[in-house]
């Protein structure tokens, strides 16, 4: 009985340490994402989505960006229909392009519209 009581605080401490390690890992990932976004923003402070920028994007984001250029503006649903990828995937990529400063996002009712430049 004494032995199990002695062990309990050790187990609790062990669990706390594991949780802290997991939190640390998550924090590292968040810091890395933040650093990456800052770097991208520094390269393209004006957020111009021209062909040279399109060439510099990773393949998965380029496909989304080129499709949006063809539409002028669009929702994740409209982009997904043309790229034949899942809506949730396109939504993620579009938001990533917004975070990188290449696209803008505007809510109209329940829908979010993405564009590089407001159309006349």
């Amino acid at each position, binding site marked *: 009985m004494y032995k199990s009581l002695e062990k309990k605080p050790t187990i609790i401490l062990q669990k706390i340490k594991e949780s802290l390690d997991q939190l640390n890992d998550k924090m590292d990932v968040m810091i890395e994402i933040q650093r990456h976004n800052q770097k991208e923003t520094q390269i393209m402070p004006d957020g111009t*989505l*021209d*062909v040279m*920028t399109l060439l510099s994007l990773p393949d998965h984001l380029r496909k989304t960006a*080129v499709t949006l*250029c063809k539409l*002028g503006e669009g929702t994740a649903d409209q982009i997904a229909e043309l790229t034949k990828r899942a809506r949730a995937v396109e939504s993620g990529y579009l938001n990533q392009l917004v975070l990188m400063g290449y696209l803008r996002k505007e809510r109209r009712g329940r829908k979010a519209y993405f564009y590089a*430049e407001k159309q006349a």
Partner: protein
Amino acid sequence: MGKIIALHSYKGGTGKTLISVNLAATYARKGKDVCLLDLDFRAPSLHVIFRVDGAEYWLNDYLSGVCGIEKVLIDVTPKNPGKGKFLVGLANPTTEAIREMSAKDRKWEMRALGRLLSLKNSVLNDMHMDYIIFDTSPGLQYSSINAIVGADTVLVITGTDTSDIEGTQRMIHELYDLFEKKTAIIMNKVPCEVLPSKNQKRILRERYNINHTMPLMEVIPCSCDILRAGGTYIFSEEKPDHPFSKTLAKIASYIEAN
């Protein structure tokens, strides 16, 4: 819906304009409605071939948002019946316009890309044209890459020069593939003595070290008849039975079918 074809090359002087003009004329002869656009703003040349002294509006104006595309297009349809409509859009050849175009900023180029992409709606859908052909500047120019992004099919013209072939192979992987474009290579000005009657493409691939990822569509032999014509008339219109005109008819049919 119609198709947009861009003619591009790594180096200059490969014969892009000659092939663009004659490909457009071939489609018109087949009864297709075609629109040929001079996107070579650094060295415009279609105004000379079509003998247009001055246009009210140029493609430069359209890309700058000054006017609609219908104001730029000039009807050059030959008088012969049964042919398709043949329209051309010209680049401003004045030194001032060339200088101005080479100094455009990235924001302007982004808007120009939007206007090129909208041609699919305005020219192919609304005007019911069958083909738009972009004649571009060689190499990695803004206007050329814009044209490639806006096209459905890219025809890359190369000569037999080693640096041209190497550059073309590099552009396939570093440019056309990145934009997921249908690409085909046309090897132009090939000396007749290296053209065997059989297994032409295989032998050319070996001789010029062309790797197998390069989609070699057609081979055009060097022709003194074309040099003699000197761009004073549209070759395939005047000489439809010449081997050059027949090769272009093959290229036109291939694009039509794919």
